[in-house]
């Protein structure tokens, strides 16, 4: 079973802290992959403007590295910062990678005054074009995210080993939100794109467990013909895309996510204040119903963090912390490792109806229940 850890804090911290939490939960994964997502970036040697999109990925050789450069330049992006990891290659277990990159760009001039949606579409299509380019060239280029204020690292191997290899403990990179997943390879091959967290247009989630309803959900998402709904090297990628679909396509609030993936039963909806609307929503989103067993942990562009469970709560997950710093982990010892100085009596383990939301101000947890009135005006 995969292990998950997320930490969010007002003061930027090193991703290594989260990797140490992964170490605390280490019996749960098999080293088939580590994924890291950092949001709210701070670089030791660069004053970062959070409007600049950051491109994260791996170039396997010089050729692909050059191709990447050329591509971005031709598309009109101006390189503002190119982060260099101080590589400890002796920690590398798999194949030698030419370059792990985290590079900040300035958007092409013609996007300077463009509406947000257009900018977002451009960043998505740039990422996808680069990904396609890598795939067409024997997988020599992997791109995980291209978005302002977000960096991603994915690698096959044990979390701490990967962290040591990239010297993540050196304080060069810090972030206000960091999520990590140690992957237990379930049914799909070991592939960098199969490492959680998954990312699309600023929205990212990671999951433990297995998604048994994967194929029908994937088929439905593919039918949307939305360019970013692709990949699916992992059955968990659909959770990210469903969240994206809920927020960006249906334009519903975050609280609706739970009603989409694990809707209440018809008898429960009969008593719900917005039962009629939610019954309709359940109908139209029927193909997005998940079965789990999963805990889904995610972050949104505004640094909101969330945690939801499957309908039967068949996976563990705990959230704990204090004002200004919160941690979510698949195991309680993970929370302990990330925030030892908290009052564990206030830890919370969500049940099947809950959505735990840590708002960007990080003052307190919001625990939203599906049985509560839906905050959307149109539902009324």
């Amino acid at each position, binding site marked *: 079973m995969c292990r998950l850890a997320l930490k969010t804090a007002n003061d930027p911290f090193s991703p290594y802290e989260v990797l140490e939490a992964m170490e605390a939960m280490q019996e749960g994964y098999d080293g088939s992959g580590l994924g890291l997502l950092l949001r709210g970036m701070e670089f030791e040697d660069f004053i970062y403007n959070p409007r600049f999109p950051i491109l994260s990925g791996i170039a396997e050789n010089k050729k692909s590295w050059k191709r990447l450069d050329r591509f971005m330049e031709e598309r009109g992006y101006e390189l503002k910062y190119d982060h260099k990891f101080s590589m400890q290659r002796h920690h590398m277990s798999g194949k030698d990678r030419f370059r792990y990159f985290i590079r900040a760009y300035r958007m092409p001039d013609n996007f300077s005054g463009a509406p947000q949606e257009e900018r977002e579409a451009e960043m998505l299509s740039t990422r996808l074009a680069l990904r396609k380019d890598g795939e067409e060239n024997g997988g020599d280029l992997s791109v995980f995210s291209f978005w302002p204020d977000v960096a991603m690292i994915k690698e096959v191997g044990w979390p701490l080993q990967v962290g040591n290899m990239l010297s993540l403990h050196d304080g060069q990179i810090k972030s206000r939100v960091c999520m990590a997943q140690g992957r237990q390879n379930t049914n799909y091959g070991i592939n960098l794109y199969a490492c959680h967290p998954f990312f699309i247009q600023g929205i990212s989630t990671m999951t433990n467990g297995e998604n048994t309803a994967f194929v*029908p959900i994937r088929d*439905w998402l593919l039918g949307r013909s939305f360019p970013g709904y692709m990949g699916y090297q992992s059955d968990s990628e659909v959770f990210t895309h469903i969240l994206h679909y809920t927020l960006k396509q249906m334009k519903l609030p975050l609280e609706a996510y739970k009603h989409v993936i694990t809707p209440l039963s018809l008898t429960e909806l009969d008593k719900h204040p917005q039962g009629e609307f939610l019954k309709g*929503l359940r109908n139209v989103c029927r193909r997005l*119903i998940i*079965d789990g067993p999963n805990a889904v942990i995610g972050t949104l562009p505004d640094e909101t963090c969330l945690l939801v469970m499957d309908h039967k709560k068949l996976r563990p997950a705990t959230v704990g912390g204090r004002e200004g710093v919160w941690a979510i982990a698949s195991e309680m010892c993970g929370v302990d490792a990330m925030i030892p100085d908290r009052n564990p009596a206030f830890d919370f383990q969500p049940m099947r109806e809950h959505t735990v939301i840590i708002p960007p101000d990080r003052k307190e947890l919001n625990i939203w229940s599906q049985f509560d009135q839906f905050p959307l005006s*149109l539902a009324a």
Partner: protein
Amino acid sequence: MVPIRSIPIEPGSLSYPDLPWVIQHREDRCTLCGQCTSVCPKECLYLAYRRQRMPNLEVLSKKRGSEYRTFVGIRQRTDMKRSCIGCGMCAMVCPNEAITPVPNTVENRTLFFNNQKGEAYKRGGRRNTTGPTLLDRIMFDRISMLTDPALDAGRHEFTVSTTIGRILSPEEYLKRKVNGGWIPPTREVFPFIIGSMSFGALSPNMWLGLLQGVAYCNEVLDIPVVMCTGEGGCPPWVLRSPYLKYIILQIASGYFGWDEIIRAIPDMQCYPAAIEIKYGQGAKPGDGGLLMWYKVSKLIARLRGVPEGVDLPSPPVHQTLYSIEESVMKMIQTLSMAFNHKVPVYPKISASTSAKSVLNNLVRNPYAGGLLIDGIDGGTGAAYSVSMDATGHPVASNVRECYLDLAAQGMQNEVPIYAAGGVGKNGNVAQNGMALVMLGASAVHIGKYIMQSTAGCLGNEQNRCNVCNVGICPKGITSQNPKLYRRLDPDSVAERVAETYMAIRTEVKKIMAPLGRSQSLPIGMSDAIGINDKDAAERLQIKYVC
């Protein structure tokens, strides 16, 4: 050789070993009570007086010769009209286990003579193909062994219902919610629907029993079963009762019973579950309904608005329509409008290589609430034998290709596909149904299985019984003769309906639990199934397993 002019042999004369069923009668057990002869629907049994030779074998005497005695036994007739159909009612009523029909495995020469008086062979029932069907061979092989705690079919909560009716895309739904647009009606039902069997094809007692059972499933067992009327309307009291919500009203090319239905609309306490427009039937594609005169009783005549005792063949096509496109435009919309756009309306077609075109037509019609595809293995109350045996298309690949076509357009949640035709024909109803669901069907319709399971229909795949068309159903299921249908107790049928559905529900859970599915019916979960036949696997785009 003796000239045998005196022996009456004609070209069509048969002897009992030529018949499909041979009666085995044991004189030593028979008490001559006469129950078998009186119950036989074909009057094929008769009391026969035979002479038996009793040879004298006195060793020490020179006296030779035999003595004779007369005995009384049961024999079968050999003329086509009264040949045994193997229903086995004789065995069922015999108090002494003295009689039973056995299938003749040597030769069935009636095949050459069932065209008496120039009439092509007609029968009710099924296609009569034995052995496991393709659906029987599908295995649910994606067992969650790695990370899942297995679900518990007995204790966990399962949602196994499905939808009838058009579903909007999520974006369109939200738009209409905001702007107050029309949200197409849907019904949440159990995915095993009692398929269309008309009031006319079925006896009043059978119909009543089914309806009672369906109501019990809904109101007591919380299994939202619905049943379809078939062509021929619905009893007026049902139309005006709260039970109408469990009924799918069918309209077919004969429009029988729709006078009554339209007149009842103002008095309806609730809307029907759905309207099914029948364009074709899997068992006899290209044919309309066929209610033979034997079954057009006074009640049926009144309900259908026709004189008593006449054949009621529905035309093969809807006479007012030119094409399916036109029908999509007119009929679906008209019927939707007749019920204030609050009842889902969907067409039923025979499985066919042209099903995809029909489907694509429906996709563009916002009033179309789904498509029912009826495969060649479906049953019927009456059809020409040749239609039943040789015309049609199996349901599995047809449903699959339609589903994949919808999925390619991203419409698989919007236009549900229902499958029928041979579901449970070997008894594996839940397995067959769930296999179709995973191939892409949103629900299945079951007819023959329901008749067999709830009323003890005697038909099987060896041409047993199959006399639904002539109104002599020995169980009283498909007869309008009160003497016959009084044999069927509606309460017992209702009880069996409840038992059947309780068992199906459990089996569905037992199939879903190991797959790790419980929150929604696994429609289109094709990764969960495999078959040990490479060609079939390739055609259905599922795994080949061996």
